[in-house]
């Protein structure tokens, strides 16, 4: 055998790091309206290209263009804008509350509001989401009480989860929002199981699974793909590619090659990428995938291309690992700005009304916060009972737990 050159380890690196100038020039973005809209029963092998493109509706001028446009009336869009603005305002207040020491932890959605807010509008009551910690828009757009969310964040006496869960790990069966786990990826296969159950029961409800770009590396992502494809489960599999997983960029989870959407191809699962900062595009793609699921055509994989403009959580400072200004350099813009511009262009919205709405929303959020703080915060006021700590481990408390509760003195 000939002399060989020594091998070396390839470790992918993001385009820029602290100190560098952000540069997204090799991120290929199709023009809005450019990508076709196939029939919902299109053969997966005929739309493979869509896993390497990006469905976009809103162009730079704020027009809705192309085959995915024209599905929502302006009233619905105004609601949508309000949902996103509310989520952003909610986040800002709660991050501040965390900074003030009123709770232990917080995670915001800055820059990603369109994904969960628009998606929710494509679902029906009774459908179930299996979310991560970064889809609270599903609750806001779904009409869940902000005060209840804050009660959870404060782990106070009115926390629907009795103080047991870390802030933002909401759960609301009624609002189609499965209990969030701290363990990444586990929900992805659970969503498939829920969808299988709906199919087994001859129901008409569908499930939606959610996962981050980084967490696609987890093994349960694979389990979900296998089960979804095998049983053609009525589930929409959503990957939210917000470019970062704490300090690691999305290329690390895929060797800087392929796309997350293309993971579907090995399973015969139709896969699309969508501009996650484009409310109309997210909604259109979600509706398409939901329709497929409801029609018995099985799973769809959607990669939402977006950007995590804030820190990973209240414990994180991204300036240690990513370039300053990356968020502003992000080429898909801000989801609220983009929808706002569209609505202004449609003539149903204006800068003034926007400013006014912002003030109204802030007021509403503040009022909710006040109401929630009456029920206590993590550090003061009414709190869940330590007695509750022993409940719900089982439906019925077994003798050893009853003894422990007694030992604990509660």
């Amino acid at each position: 055998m000939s002399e060989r050159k020594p091998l070396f380890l390839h470790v992918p690196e993001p385009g820029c790091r602290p100190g560098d100038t952000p540069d997204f020039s090799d991120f290929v973005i199709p023009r809005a309206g450019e990508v076709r809209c196939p029939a919902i029963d299109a053969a997966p092998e005929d739309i493979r290209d869509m896993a390497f493109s990006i469905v976009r509706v809103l162009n730079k001028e704020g027009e809705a263009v192309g085959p995915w446009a024209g599905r929502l009336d302006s009233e619905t869009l105004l609601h949508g804008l309000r949902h996103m603005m509310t989520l952003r305002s909610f986040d800002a207040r709660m991050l501040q509350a965390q900074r003030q020491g009123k709770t232990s932890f917080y995670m915001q959605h800055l820059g990603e509001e369109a994904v969960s807010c628009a998606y929710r509008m494509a679902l029906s009551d009774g459908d179930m989401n299996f979310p991560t910690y970064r889809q609270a828009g599903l609750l806001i757009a779904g009409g869940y009480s902000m005060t209840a969310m804050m009660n959870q964040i404060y782990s106070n006496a009115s926390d629907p989860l009795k103080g047991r869960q870390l802030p933002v790990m909401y759960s609301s069966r009624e609002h189609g929002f499965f209990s969030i786990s701290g363990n990444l990826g586990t929900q992805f296969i659970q969503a498939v199981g829920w969808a299988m159950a709906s199919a087994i029961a001859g129901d008409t409800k569908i499930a939606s699974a959610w996962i981050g770009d980084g967490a696609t590396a987890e093994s349960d992502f694979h389990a979900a793909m296998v089960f979804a494809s095998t049983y053609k489960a009525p589930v929409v599999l959503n990957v939210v590619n917000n470019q970062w997983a704490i300090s690691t960029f999305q290329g690390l989870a895929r060797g800087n090659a392929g796309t997350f959407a293309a993971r579907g191809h090995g399973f015969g699962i139709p896969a699309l990428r969508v501009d996650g900062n484009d409310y109309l595009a997210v909604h259109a793609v979600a509706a398409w995938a939901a329709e497929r699921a409801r029609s018995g055509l099985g799973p769809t994989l959607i990669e939402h291309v977006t950007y995590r403009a804030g820190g990973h959580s209240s414990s994180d400072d991204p300036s240690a690992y990513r370039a300053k200004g990356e968020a502003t350099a992000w080429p898909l813009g801000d989801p609220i700005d983009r929808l706002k511009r569209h609505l202004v262009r449609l003539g149903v919205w204006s800068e003034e009304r926007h400013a006014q709405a912002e003030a109204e929303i802030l007021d509403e959020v503040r009022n909710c916060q006040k109401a929630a703080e009456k029920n206590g915060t993590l550090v003061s006021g009414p709190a869940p009972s330590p007695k509750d700590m022993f409940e719900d481990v089982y439906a019925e408390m077994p003798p050893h737990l009853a003894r422990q509760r007694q030992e604990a003195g509660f």
Partner: protein
Amino acid sequence: MIEAIRNAHDIAMERDERVVVFGEDAGYFGGVFRCTAGLQKKYGKNRCFDAPINESGIVGAGIGMAAYGLRPVVEIQFADYVYPAYDQIVSEAARLRYRSAGQFTCPMVIRMPTGGGIFGGQTHSQSPEALFTHVSGLKVVVPSNPVDAKGLLMAAIEDPDPVIFLEPKRLYNGPFNGHHDRPIVAWKSHPMGEVDDGYYTTPLGRAAVRRAGGDVTVLAYGTMVHVAEAAADERGVDAEVIDLRTLLPLDMETIETSVKKTGRCVVVHEATRTSGFGAELCALVQEKCFFHLEAPVTRVTGWDTPYPHAQEWAYFPGPDRVGRALTQVLEG
């Protein structure tokens, strides 16, 4: 015992539409141990089906189904292969009710053949029960005979919480007392081998006294119940053999009553010793019965090594080793 387990599935599926059964080779073929044979044919592919080889997927999908409102009963082909599903069991199934404050629950049964004695080597012989008894939110069941297997499985399927159901595979085809060199005995010759055809449940959380005795209490479950009985018989020891049946929650009352009476206790299991379930039993017995104990609680267990193939019978805690421990505890 296979027929009893199959029958429990059958009755549960008949009585409750929400019961669905799946696992690797569990559908068309009916399972490598045939515990689900015939169910697909009878109830359709919708309710009994083959699963891809992904244990995390099997349990994870089961959790989703249970959250929806079904009652999944899943099979892990061997207990040795449950570890890929461990995260879904520990982090998800066990805690779902708690973390959602009861909004979502997980009434699921996870069945798996456990234990050695069939020359299965290190990956077809393990007894991982202690890895589940440490997990709050789970129930853990180990039957030792067909009558119980059916009743306990029925109860497990009806239980509102996740149940780990460990089936000692060496008992599938007959009681086994550890005398591997003697002729094989069939269940039909055993009092607990004759199973009622109809519906019944055996409540979880209750032990059974298999052999009454006054001198020493033996705590055992699964295969080891038969080994303990044989050891006591052969040594002529007046041992009370308790079949725990459910490890979590544990029937401490029955244990306490017996040990307070006998003053001596031997704990037997096939799993490796260190941090095995026997440790918890020792801890509890000395906590509750300290002033009644006349000798240390003694453990007879598998050794702290992987389960070897050729040395299977040197590893297996047979009647000889249990017998020696009985004698020693009585003398000590």
